């Protein structure tokens, strides 16, 4: 040790200065703009939306068993535009007989409700947020348990994937052939409307952050539409949304290029397939809407919170054609009866109410004494022989009302006069509208024992075939 030399030599001082200068250079190289906390945050926000990536990444996702995703399955099941009607091309027998019931065996927790139904399959969910997928024979194919991070808001279905859309804007897709999660995308934006599928894209309305989403600062919209690739979950871009005060609902207009969006008292028509969703027209009703819109024959039928029925003319940019007071508050959605300009619905008190919209007055009502919880009806055409038999007018083409009635029954009514045409007995109370598969109706029922079952109702021809097939299999 050189204890004598405690004074620093000039070259060591120079080395120290160079070292300090090097340190300052390193510091400035790492933070050239001297980013502040605010800049950091805005950088984060901007890059985050650019960096929306699904889990797992597309390169790691499982192959889908079904190659084609197909169009969005219609839900509620019976018809586009919430019409609750079976195909106008098909006429039916009035006699349907319960062939079999298939109990749904699963350990449900709490109250069960239908998530979505498709063809012969049914997706249920219970209070734990678990999803159950049953085939038409009541066999549990798979379950999917959701965590409680955010409430499930909407479900969409196509031929390969089930889309679970949560309030916080997270979308999880499930491969319906095996129940495996396919991709998940957390958008970090609260959902602000009803999503839909369009070509290869999932359109997801989320809450807008105007300072980020709108290029023009003056234009402040409440929602933004995120475009997400259906197959991989990859974020494709953003479109300007709409200016509603609350999350909106949407419905496609049958046989038209329009889509109607509605929320509160506002209705907006936009092109069905487009890139910018610029409104074609918009209108505001005097009071808030309640329930779903029904669109048929160039008219939009909407019920408001004070049970007022409005008919809006689609061709006249949503002008109110007429409005009438409903004496019985609807307990479920409206059902349009084609050819006879009538609307039917079940009231909260289980009364079937038919409204003549041509005469703008109440037609008839009938207390159905329904014991179950279902308050939905649908309409279907009967075969010509029954038109003759029940003295119905040919001009109305055999359209009839099918409704739950009494205990464990469906009933068919003539919409003109309320005449009962047929009762169809079930083993339990129906809890959702049936799915129609050729000449077979598949109904989810609650059995007297409290369990759930799928009831298969067959028309006489189908019943004979099914019985013969069963006899052969037994032998």
């Amino acid at each position, binding site marked *: 040790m050189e204890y004598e030399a405690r004074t620093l030599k000039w070259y060591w001082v120079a080395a120290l200065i160079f070292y300090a200068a090097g340190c300052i250079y390193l510091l400035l190289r*790492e933070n050239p703009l001297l980013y502040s906390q605010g800049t950091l945050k805005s950088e984060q926000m901007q890059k985050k939306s650019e960096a929306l*990536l699904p889990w*797992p990444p597309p390169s790691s996702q*499982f192959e889908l068993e079904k190659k084609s995703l197909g169009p969005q399955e219609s839900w509620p099941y019976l018809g586009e535009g919430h019409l609750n009607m079976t195909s106008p091309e098909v006429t039916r027998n009035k006699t349907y007989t319960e062939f079999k019931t298939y109990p749904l065996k699963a350990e449900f927790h709490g109250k069960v409700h239908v998530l979505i139904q498709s063809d012969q399959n049914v997706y249920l969910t219970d209070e734990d947020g678990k999803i159950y997928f049953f085939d038409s024979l009541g066999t549990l194919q798979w*379950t999917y348990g959701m965590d409680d991070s955010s409430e499930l808001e909407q479900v969409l279905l196509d031929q390969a994937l089930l889309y679970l859309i949560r309030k916080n804007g997270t979308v999880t897709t499930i491969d319906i052939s095996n129940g495996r999660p396919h991709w998940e995308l957390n958008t970090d934006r609260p959902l602000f409307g009803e999503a839909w599928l369009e070509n290869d894209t999932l359109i997801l309305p989320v809450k807008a952050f105007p300072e980020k989403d709108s290029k023009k600062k003056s234009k402040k919209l409440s929602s933004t539409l995120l475009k997400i690739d259906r197959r991989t979950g990859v974020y494709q871009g953003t479109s300007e949304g709409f200016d509603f005060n609350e999350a909106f609902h949407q419905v496609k207009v049958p046989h038209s290029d329009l889509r109607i969006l509605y929320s509160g008292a506002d209705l907006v028509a936009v092109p069905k397939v487009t890139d910018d969703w610029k409104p074609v027209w918009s209108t505001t009703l005097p009071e808030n809407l309640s329930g779903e819109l029904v669109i048929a024959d160039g008219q939009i039928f909407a019920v408001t919170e004070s049970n007022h029925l409005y008919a809006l003319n689609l061709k006249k940019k949503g002008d109110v054609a007429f409005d009438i007071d409903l004496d019985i508050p609807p307990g479920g959605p409206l059902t349009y009866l084609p050819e006879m300009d009538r609307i039917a619905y079940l009231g909260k008190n289980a009364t079937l109410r038919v409204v003549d919209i041509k005469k703008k007055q109440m037609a008839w009502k009938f207390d159905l004494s329904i014991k179950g919880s279902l308050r939905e009806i649908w309409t279907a055409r009967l075969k010509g022989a029954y038109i003759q038999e029940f003295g119905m007018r040919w001009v109305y083409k055999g359209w009839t009302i099918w409704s739950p009635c009494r205990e464990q029954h469906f009933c068919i009514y003539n919409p003109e006069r309320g005449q009962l045409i047929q009762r169809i007995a079930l083993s339990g109370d129906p809890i959702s509208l049936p799915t129609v598969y050729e000449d077979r109706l598949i109904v989810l029922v609650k059995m007297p024992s409290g369990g759930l079952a799928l009831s298969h109702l067959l028309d006489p021809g189908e019943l004979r075939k099914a019985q013969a097939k069963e006899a052969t299999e037994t032998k």
Partner: protein
Amino acid sequence: MSLFQANLWEINKSFSLRFLGAILGLSQAVIAYQWLIGTNSPLRFARQSTAVCWPVLSTCSWAKLLSPGIIDAAFWIFVVAVVLAILTFLFTRAAGVAAFLLWTASIFGFFLYTYDFRLSSNAGFLTFFFTFIYLLVPSKVFSFRFILFAAYLAFAFQKLNADWLSGYWILERLHGPEKLGEWLAALMALIELIAPATLLIKDGRYFWSGWLILIAYHATMIWMGMTHLSLLFMGILIFIALADLEDRKLEREYIYQSFIHPEPSRFWTFCILVIFAFCQLSSHFLWFRHNTSFQSLAGLLTPYPISLVEECHGKIWQVYENGWKESSFPDAEGRDNSMRCHPYLRFLDLKAECQVLKDKPGFKTLAAIFESEKLFEGTSHVHFQSADLCNQQYQFSDVGRVKWNTKHGL
């Protein structure tokens, strides 16, 4: 044996080295106290069914062969030994006894520290690292000046990134204006880079200015909540100051160390410095960066960054015979902040979860994806993804080779 004797001779002749022994003992005592009152403790982990191995170990099933009673006994031996070591260092001249007690405490303490990877922390790493240098490396004053400088540089280089320089970490604690946070962050990085260099200079003007700046810096860090690590550094700084005063006294008395005892070798100091520096820089070399085993080894001598502006997200699914169930990642409560997004730890958390769930009716495996996002850069990185995480053949070394949809026939 001569190595021990040489080290004991050094400790025995110098008050400043005995003081340093007490400081290192005190730091071990703080660790013991944290284990006693906290949830991140070997006493608690000993009672869990699975151990979390250190990255350098392929298995640590041996840890589970030890009963909780053995771990408890080791802990209390550690506590008693460390308390006695502190008292002996401070109040007696029996340096041999004190060093023996510190050896005992360090062996038991280090055993407990390595018992579970979840216990690793910057304070723990530096305490045991400095203790073993203190006990084993000759020419201690010289070694500590350089090792301390190297440690400061290691921490300073961790601060030369946007995460630290944005001032985010400071403003989380100070709640001041944004610009203040930014300037303080830059100033603190500069202090860690430059001030320790003055500790190597014998000129009193430089030495004492650097020393005072570092003391003030650590006082500020203690105020901002980084107590244990800063107290350890402050203790070592006081030791260096005492050693410098001692040195000057010796000079005044014209007593040369070489006259009393041969000058201790400095070879080991330089060896340790080279290894330490190489570990800090290894991630910059391409081959080493992609060598997982080497990175695990280098990680043993690398401090964790204290200021990562990083978010990590994980998603796990429990896979049963009849379906999948979303679940949340096991809690990282009580763990060092810098280790919340540690991919290896999170991977092992899930392996532990497999053990917890394996007896549940119908349980098959776990599926999981874990990614972290560097907020400043806006980039995210998937660390691991697997649809069959409980597969025995799937280990952390397979991460990157195994995708979400791969069957694990490794």
